[in-house]
């Protein structure tokens, strides 16, 4: 067991856990922040995507011991960011979600995309969202919502 000081959504947190524990389970079980979802556990589906120092990161495969002092932002906090808010609003107005299980990860990836490419092309969207799987098949609406958010922010 080790103790780690983390910054999650701007708040200082302290957790004591096994160093190998993935960030996902620190968020979900230690900090009781269940908005970030467990899908595959092997970085193959994107449901667990969070931002670590602004980079979209699969939290299911990143041990808490590697986080260091990098700030973490999750789906619970991304709405406080102007880009995050625009993406969430676009997701609602485009009626993107179905079951919703993958959408926390989809939104976190979309926000990271729009922060690096404010006006993404279809190719940009496909390349950067390709690692986020949606079994309901909401991809067409996801693309529309990303473009709507991009326009909203322009």
């Amino acid at each position, binding site marked *: 067991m080790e103790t780690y000081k983390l910054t999650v959504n701007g708040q200082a947190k302290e957790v004591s*856990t*096994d160093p*190998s*524990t*993935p960030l996902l*389970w620190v968020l*979900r*079980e230690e900090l*009781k*922040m*269940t*908005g*970030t*979802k*467990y899908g595959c*556990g092997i970085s193959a589906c994107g449901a667990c995507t969070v931002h670590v120092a602004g980079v979209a990161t699969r939290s299911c495969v990143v041990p808490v011991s590697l986080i260091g002092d990098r700030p973490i932002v*999750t*789906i*619970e906090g991304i*709405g406080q960011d102007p880009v995050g808010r625009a993406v*969430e609003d676009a*997701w*609602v107005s485009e*009626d*993107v*979600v*179905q*079951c*919703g*299980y993958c*959408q*926390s990860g989809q*939104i976190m990836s979309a926000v990271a995309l729009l922060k690096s490419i404010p006006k993404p092309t279809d190719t940009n969207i496909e390349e950067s969202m390709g690692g986020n799987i949606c079994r*309901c098949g909401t991809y067409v609406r996801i693309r529309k919502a990303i473009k709507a958010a991009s326009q909203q922010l322009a």
Partner: protein
Amino acid sequence: MFATTIAAQELGLSRRGFLRVSVTAAGGLIVSLYLDSPLLSQQPPQLKVYPPDAFVHIKRDGMIVIQVNRLEFGQGVQTALPMLLADEMDADWSHVVAELAPAADVYKDPLFGIQMVGGSGSIAHSFQQYRELGAKVRAMLLAAAVQQWKVPTAQCRTEASVVYGPGGRSAKYAELADSAARLPVPENSPLKRASDFKLIGKDTRRLDSRPKCDGSLKFGLDLDLPGMKVALVAHPPIFGASPKSFDDKAARSLQGVMDVFEIPTISRGTAVVVVADKFWTAKQARDRLAINWDFSRVESADTAQLWAKYKELAGTPGNVAGSTS
């Protein structure tokens, strides 16, 4: 109210169900559907803000909370069932909130007699029930306005959570809810003609989008109860396989592991379960199980065997499916 079905009769449920209304402690109208059944308690439930068997709650602020007796998992039932009720009720859709109903007899599927979702039956089985509930609530709100204004019912109409009467009278549903709750529940309330639907068949947008976009919606995996443990299953790699033997010493040596034991699988095999304090402990423990699987009783059919079987069957007399003469 309830369709007669074999399933319902087998459960001892009679055909009759009836509505009961009550004023809640917090104010507002609650309409519940009670089953007239020897299996169920005939005692009215304790009044609280959300009694488990309430379908509709008109709150003082005008919000209309509708209980959904099916699990939403992307098929849209969390929106579709409230649409049925809200349409007949002439509710203001922008003020409708859907809630997942708790487990209770009153939320059982009217046809299957159990609380369930599946078989693409949610709308088909609940279409009548939710519309009738909405029509009865509307009739009671209308009656409350008629009583208050002392005007003929025929001169009143409802639209978007408001009752309108002659001489420019109007009253919001939220204002009428308390007096409506004291009125008898009508036995029959006519349902709308399809041409009068305002919500049914229209694009209304999902009611559950926002909580699915900000991480606040609780999924099954997000359930957290005091002292809850996590169990992970080491499934047999082939249907029907069972452990010949397994070594759980390494798994049990991890701090936080409570137990390791075998359970039967639905394919008549056996799996090994690890129970621990947290997911990551259980995952590490499961990874440390050394299981020696016994495949001697697994399904052994392969393509070659199946073709051989088909060929053999093709040479035998079959059943006559039809005849032209």
